[in-house]
């Protein structure tokens, strides 16, 4: 197992170098330049040229890349052009928001999707199964921002049950040592703040989790249907095990293997889906931040932010692989 993890960690090195090159080149391929963006409406071509020269933007790309790697190695991700705050500061504040949201969405998607898929399989071709299929189709096809607006309209505007913006009550004065607001409430002993943060997560999590939920429930259903007809399940039943035990020990454990893979992949999709969700719910996370950075040609933010997200994505996949290996001994052996 240890060898497996070490091997996967070593593989990360070329992946990260490749990623840094890709991000660096891709951003510079965007039209427009930060010098023009920075000088604003009254930029003269001379002033643009001067800025470009002064800060090395007219150097060959490989020279710029080398300079970028050097600063990166020193842990300096630069400063945002638009906000004038360091990228590290922004990451510290925004990454927790996005991770909290993605985790909440995933908990919702797994918590509802797996049981729903299981039920659908157990009641194969029944009303429950058909309803599950319809719900999944809706979940996949409805755009996140539309669902978000509808949810907010019902639960915030009409019923007034849940908040529609931000991560905490607008009047809240809670402290945030880690910027994971749910956790912060627990750490500082302010459970009210934790609950406030959870309430702010409910609607965004449902909006963002709707697509993964649909996928997870469909995969679970298919997988349970497959496993149910395996010989070992029939044997377990034949030897007189209680149906519940058969389901738990033999069906679910094996049926969850493909679901685990899907969950890993969905984590990546959640990070990209967060762009829309964060915008509609005014959550100061990575998604809305990177979207703004693209418009502003905010190179430091794009470089730092995308590289950071890519690393997170790679690590999430590593974690999924490890979980997979734990669940399925055959992977470890190979």
């Amino acid at each position: 197992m240890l060898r497996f993890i070490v091997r996967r960690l070593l593989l990360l090195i070329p992946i990260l170098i490749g990623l840094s090159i890709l991000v660096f080149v891709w951003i510079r391929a965007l039209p427009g330049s930060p010098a023009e963006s920075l000088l604003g409406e009254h930029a003269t071509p001379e002033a643009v040229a001067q800025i470009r020269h002064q800060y090395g933007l007219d150097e060959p790309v490989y020279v710029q890349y080398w300079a970028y790697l050097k600063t990166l190695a020193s842990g300096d991700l630069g400063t945002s052009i638009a906000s004038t705050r360091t990228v590290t500061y922004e990451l510290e504040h925004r990454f927790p928001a996005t991770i909290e949201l993605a985790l909440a969405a995933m908990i919702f998607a797994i918590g509802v999707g797996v049981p729903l898929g299981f039920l659908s399989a157990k009641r194969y071709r029944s009303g429950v199964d058909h309803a599950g299929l319809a719900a999944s189709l809706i979940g996949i096809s409805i755009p996140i921002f539309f669902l978000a607006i509808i949810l907010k309209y019902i639960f915030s505007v009409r019923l007034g049950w849940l908040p529609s913006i931000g991560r905490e009550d607008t009047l809240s004065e809670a402290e945030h040592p880690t910027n994971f607001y749910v956790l912060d409430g627990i750490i500082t002993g302010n459970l009210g703040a934790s609950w406030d943060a959870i309430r702010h997560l409910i609607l965004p999590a449902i909006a963002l989790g709707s697509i993964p939920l649909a996928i997870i429930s469909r995969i679970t259903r298919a997988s349970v249907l497959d496993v149910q007809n395996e010989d070992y399940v029939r044997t377990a039943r034949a030897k007189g095990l209680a149906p519940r035990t058969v389901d738990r020990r033999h069906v679910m454990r094996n049926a969850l293997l493909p679901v685990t893979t899907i969950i890993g992949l969905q984590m990546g999709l959640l990070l990209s889906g967060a762009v829309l969700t964060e915008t509609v719910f005014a959550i100061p996370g990575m998604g809305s931040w990177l979207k703004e950075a693209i418009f502003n040609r905010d190179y430091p933010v794009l470089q730092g932010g995308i590289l950071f997200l890519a690393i997170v994505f790679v690590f999430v996949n590593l974690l999924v692989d490890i979980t997979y290996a734990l669940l399925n001994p055959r992977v470890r052996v190979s």
Partner: protein
Amino acid sequence: MAKGLKLALALGAVALLTATAAFAASDRGAASDTLVYGASADPSLLDPSLTSDGESLRPTGQIFDSLVGFKKGTSTVVPSLATKWTTSKNQLAWTFKLRKGVQFSDGTPFNAAAVCANFTRWYSFPAPLQSDALSYYWQTVFGGFAKPAPGGLGPDKSLYKGCKAHGQYSVSILLRRPSSSFLAAIGLPNFGIASPTALKKYEADAGTVDATGVFHPTGTFATQHPIGTGPYMLQSWTPGNKMVLVANPKYWGPKPKIKRIIYIPIGDPSARLQALQSGEIQAYDNVAPQDFATIKGNKKFKLYLRPPTSLGYVGINQSLPPMNNPLVRQAVAYGLNGAAVAKAFYGGVGTPATQFLPPSLAGFAKKGVPVFKYDPAKSIALLKQAGLTPPVKIDFWWPTSVSRPYMPDPQRNFEAFAASLNKAGFQVEAHSSPWRPDYRAGVQAGKAQLFLFGWNPDFIDPANYLNVHFGSKTAQFGFDNQALFTLLAKADAASNADARAALYQQASIQVMKQLPVIPYVWAAGAIVFDSSVKGFVPSPVGTVNEPMSSLSFG
């Protein structure tokens, strides 16, 4: 297991609903001394002399006072930190009597020395701060700097010459040439007077320049300690989350009734509307025209329309043929159905524009202005008269990713204009790019033959419309009309109000004869408040002159 699951799911759903419903009961309007305001973005810096974006000037306008102010809801100059002023005969020295007993929120006194310290600071900004992106307003109003950055404007090009304190409460600002727009200009929130002690203590001008050429303050003046004399002061600011202003106990004017203002950045306009509807915020600016009806139909909210001073126009670059031909420009003017666009896409509050100055300004020409009503036949005839064979191809630029009062949805304006031009002997070739930075950069570099653009004035004066656009040669319009340049310079220097108005009227007529632009709409920015908030007066210059200190919960 299936039964257990169902039971768990049902229990979970019930628990969730009960909990949320219970919490919904907690009354949100409990804090009646606090106004929660939905901003569309975070401020960039809280130093008004180094910012030009509305999101920064909104809070700094509450923190800092300028020497003069504007009467609520108008552009009439009224006393603020200065109570009286006089100008010398040659108009090169303006002497201000200062309000006595005023303190900055850090407890230091406001006096003539403080005024001079601020003017001297602006005039002596170090080279990195002379970027357009930072000290834009100093450059627009005063021109040069004491020690210009390479290629920048120096003292000889500066309107500002010096500052002289006469004792504690009298100060003279010396100019190099007469300017009739000077007084209104220093009322801009960008010229808010800051505490010299705080500027020094919190190192307002210290900073580094990063790899992309942006100045980043290393001091904390513009981020944590913006100290002015205004009704509010900064309590805390967590970028991306919220900014809290509290009443300044040392404020010289009437004490604000609302003791705390919380600005929450909400980028998405529909999210701002829903947050208002759910009671999470009590106000937001830049209301989208399509939301006017929803808001007006609900008694819980009050929509305020600002006087329509925001101008939408189609720009023409005369250096790109065939636009160098006046007949072709006239054909474009007849081919644009501006009145229809103004009527259709501005939430019912767009007024068709026929010249570059708003009707409320003294320089507005009541007669003699060429009028261009949509007339496709006339347009085609003019093109033929110019020796061209319709359809004539034109490159028409429009921006994406932007919404301004003068063009809430540029695509709709463009599509309507393209359709009307195509009927009028033109063949429109669409050219779109993101507003920031590509579109503006392209238009301002003179690459666009025909382009959608507009203007939000900084202060309501003909100079801020006409001189800014047509006072000198620009690549954007590609025209070089020395007579107009001289006329505008003369108008700005004129001291007699009637003579000045007459000169600006002449200029207004000239602009419509030369046609560097075709104005089509006067648009009104809109701001909405919860109807429990009383006392708001919308300003013709928008958020920068809308003090929150006079608001209260009724």
